[in-house]
């Protein structure tokens, strides 16, 4: 323990530095690469990307058709591409009859290109074990109550196909612009564990 003050750092910190230093020496890593990649995932890749595609689909029926027919190509139209789209993006539409939600029971597959890095709950055993068995109970924990007529489809991402949910456009948003609509669309709505809410009336 070399630290003279506060708590010593956990073992994993030293382990990772050891691995980093070995890879740097072997010409496989530089601290600059770590910084640049992390910066991209912290700033440029996140749910705002998926939200742009959702808002476009809500306002442009032809785009919506393309998005549902070939998610990868339609997202690329908006400049959304990159690692974490798996081999192929599939966009699935929520309707009054069908509600979709996405899980990865075997690991933590997640559509990074549209949603960024996954939240801890998505990667943790509770969601991964329960989403396929008791989706309505899980949705209830997220505050989502669906009509008993609505079919729930759970998509277990077991391959390199990545899924994004196209949520329903909330009522009362007819006058909103595309960027205003995008601002309503949450990460959880695109995973399928939330509904998009109309903005509260301002006056």
């Amino acid at each position, binding site marked *: 323990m070399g630290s003279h003050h506060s708590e010593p750092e956990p073992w994993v910190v030293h382990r990772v530095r050891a691995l980093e230093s070995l890879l740097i020496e072997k010409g496989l890593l*530089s601290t600059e690469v770590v910084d640049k990649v992390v910066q991209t995932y912290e700033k440029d890749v996140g749910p705002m990307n998926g939200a742009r595609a959702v808002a476009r689909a809500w306002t442009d029926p032809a785009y919506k058709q393309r998005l549902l027919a070939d998610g990868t190509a339609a997202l690329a139209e908006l400049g959304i591409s990159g690692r974490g789209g798996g081999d*192929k993006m599939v966009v699935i539409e929520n309707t009054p009859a069908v509600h979709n939600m996405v899980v990865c029971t075997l690991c933590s597959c997640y559509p990074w290109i549209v949603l960024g890095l996954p939240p801890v709950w998505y990667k943790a055993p*509770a969601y991964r074990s329960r989403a396929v068995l008791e989706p309505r109970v899980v949705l209830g924990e997220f505050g989502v109550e669906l009509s008993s007529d609505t079919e729930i489809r759970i998509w277990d991402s077991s*391959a390199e196909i990545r899924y994004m949910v196209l949520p329903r456009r909330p009522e009362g948003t007819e006058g909103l612009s595309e960027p205003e609509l995008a601002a309503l669309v949450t990460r959880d709505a695109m995973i399928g564990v939330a509904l998009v809410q109309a903005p509260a009336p301002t006056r």
Partner: protein
Amino acid sequence: MNGVHDLGGKHGFGPIQREANEPAFHAEWEKAVLVMNLIGMVKRIYNIDEFRHAIERMGQQRYLDTSYYEHWLASVETLLVEKGVIKREELEARTNHFEANPTEPLPDRKDPELLARVMNVVRKGMAEKSEPDPAPRFKPGDAVITRNWQPRGHTRLPGYARGHRGRIHLFHGVYILPDAHAHGRGRCPEPLYSVSFESGELWGDAAEPKARVHIDLWESYLQPAEKT
């Protein structure tokens, strides 16, 4: 492999714990782990199926007791050692060194070529595209039954979906078979389908009404079923 990673349908993990305004990372070391894994794949030291399987091999008890990025770390170091990039002893010695010298900075090194290559993958991806052959045996609507097998190696057929009847929902294309690719047995591309299962078929009386589970499954996981 029938490991604890195969979580679908398991009981006892409690409520879903959400964190408000969750940051992208919870510690600095997680960032380095993410990037080292990316480099492992960009440099083709290992593939994503080997990566997933090395997590499955990390130890069942330890898997449940550790976080996502600890899983990644376990897999990255296992594969770097197995592929001969580093030696286990040098990793242990270096870890002890940093434990004794926690403020020692990392060596500095500029590598514009590596940076460009990694950032290109971050921005454009390195997806394996669908292959033209072989032609799919099934078409949407076909009734299938999943194999009831217990492979000791890597598979993407979840335990909860084995030996069950479903229907082909979509044909996705022809993709690398993880069961082979994770074990150095080549790509073995196969047709990949989204297969739709009634919740009641999977869970019996415990199933919620009006629910279906769609799982992406390779052709060799499936057998034709009589239509009922």
